[in-house]
């Protein structure tokens, strides 16, 4: 507080000098405020630089990659052997692993997440919700490497009792565990969307004689559809970008299959596999992981755009 420290009752100060002193202090204060704002703006722009950095790095290395590997081969080749002498770069192989594991995960996360969201928002009492929701959120706080460990050493042996022919590394167990991990994301966002539906709509339904279930399914869910769609999209992009569960439990063998009972490599686990080895900077192998990363970014971008479109199409204005 610079002004407070100034003593305006000093005996030597004439009125004009006092005014000049105040004006000087005010200018100094304005300069300081301006400087602080610029510093804060710089901090806020870090996020923009991060995005620019990501796009720049991915594009720079991918362009170098595509000058070595024709883009047509990248999209149509059915083999993925970038580190062999007979190198093939068919992203389809990794894409298949990513899609089938995400599919298994979503088969768990979307039904369970939606049911939990409806239950918490329409059925559970205030006290139960206050306890259950944080408990559920703890699920998303567990590090993914630990889910991977759990999938490989607990879930896979359990599944092998049901399906004896299941290999030790498989998409199924990784996908199931990934699904449980995604439940909180789907449930929490869907529940927020349902809670945002105005009470008057529910009261209208109850007044017409609907039960809780009828109100939830016929009134609340359709009104909250845009938010629920956004929750699903978030779940999908989590599944597509998930790395460690797959790297640990799904094996790292590139395999062009959509069958979850087999082992397969995904885009993310391929990046881990390459990073674990010792690839020289600037080699084609090094560039491959950036091309794979770019494909992953584009895939999540597609889902995010779809989510944006869905949100606008089904938006309910109250």
């Amino acid at each position, binding site marked *: 507080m610079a002004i407070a420290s100034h003593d305006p009752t000093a005996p030597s100060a004439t009125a004009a000098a006092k005014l000049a002193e105040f004006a000087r202090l005010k200018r100094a*204060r304005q300069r300081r*405020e301006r400087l602080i704002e610029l*510093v*804060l*703006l710089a*901090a*806020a*722009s*870090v*996020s*923009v630089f*991060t995005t620019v*950095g*990501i796009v720049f790095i*991915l594009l720079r290395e991918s362009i170098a990659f595509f000058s070595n590997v024709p883009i047509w081969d990248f999209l149509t080749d059915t083999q993925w052997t970038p580190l062999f002498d007979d190198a093939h770069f068919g992203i389809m192989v990794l894409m298949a692993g990513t899609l089938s594991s995400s599919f298994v995960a979503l088969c768990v996360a979307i039904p*369970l997440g939606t*049911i*939990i969201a*409806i*239950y918490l928002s329409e059925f559970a009492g205030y006290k139960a919700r206050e306890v*259950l929701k944080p*408990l*559920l959120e*703890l*699920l998303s*706080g*567990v*590090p*993914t*490497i*630990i889910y*991977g*460990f*759990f999938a490989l*050493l*607990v879930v896979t042996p359990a599944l092998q009792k049901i399906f004896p022919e299941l290999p030790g590394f498989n998409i199924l167990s990784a996908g199931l565990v990934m699904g*449980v991990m995604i439940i*909180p994301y789907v449930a929490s966002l869907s529940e927020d969307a349902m809670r945002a539906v105005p009470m008057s709509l529910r009261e209208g339904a109850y007044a017409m004689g609907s039960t*809780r*279930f*009828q109100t939830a399914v016929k009134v609340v869910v359709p009104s909250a559809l845009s938010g629920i769609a956004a929750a699903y999209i*978030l779940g999908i*992009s989590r599944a597509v*970008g*998930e*790395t*460690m569960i797959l790297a*640990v439990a799904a094996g790292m063998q590139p395999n062009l299959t959509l069958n979850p009972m087999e082992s397969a490599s995904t885009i*993310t686990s391929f*990046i*881990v596999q390459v*990073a674990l080895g010792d690839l020289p*900077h600037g080699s084609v192998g090094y560039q491959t*992981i*950036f091309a794979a*990363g770019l494909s*992953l*970014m584009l895939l*999540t971008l597609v889902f*995010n755009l779809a989510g944006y479109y869905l949100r606008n199409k089904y938006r309910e204005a109250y």
Partner: protein
Amino acid sequence: MAPDKTLKLRALIRKARRFDILFALLGLMSLSIAILTLAALFVDMAVTGIPRLTPEFFTNFPSRRAAEAGILSSWVGSILVMMVTALCAVPLGIAGAIYLEEYARKNWLTAVIEINITNLAGVPSIIYGLLALGLFVYTFGLGQSILTAGLTLALLILPIVITATREALRSIPQHVREAAYACGASQWQVVNDHLLKYSTPGILTGVIIGMSRAIGETAPIITIGALTFIAFLPPAPGQLNIETGQTAGLFDWLWSPFTVMPIQIFNWTSRPDPRFHENAAAAAFVLVLMTLSMNAIAIWLRYRLRKNIKW
């Protein structure tokens, strides 16, 4: 006909009520699947891991022999990386959030920054690893060091810190600001003397959630090429290096190779020998305990916050 109609109506209502009960049961069942998985995971780690949790486990370096292996280098590495992450992400995140919430005008620049933060929160963590590999490791030449890992994780949790801080600031009523301005406070004085004080618990919640995410993050750190077998500690300031005869400077540890807990767990999990899996379970138990207690603290803070502050 009237009593018949009533009977039919009653049957209809009973049927609808049954659906209510069935769905409530279904909801409870789904919730218990989720929560039981968490419990099973925790119990499995505890049962497999606790026998290995001796004091030596925390003071030994990783080893080829499972029974002698420990997590000394990885927990020290984790704490050092977290320090760098917190020192970068907390000030940057809070400052960015203050700008967006209190200073920003409604213009295209603000819109770009806001859309950016939303998008960054959805970017898979391994992409941050690629960014770090291309930018920090090779373009800036920071190498595969604690500094690189700390900066990478800082970028990763920045959206979490920013969002939490913004929410905390937004929940402060306008009259607090107006009262401060009326007393002649400048904008920074309002922010620093009033808003930051009121939003501290909210910001703290976001920071703890962010840090608990960062401490368990594996993929970006593997991507920057962190070694998995580290049998030495980063040089402490002033420590004498026996080979070169030089003492380490105050910040030499920033450039040191390192390993962190999740990477150690990954390394042990991917070995075929089941005795290493016990080590992995023990380390995983320690890590889960750390992240779950951090989350619990955050949830408790949020709960107290909602209970205590009534504007």
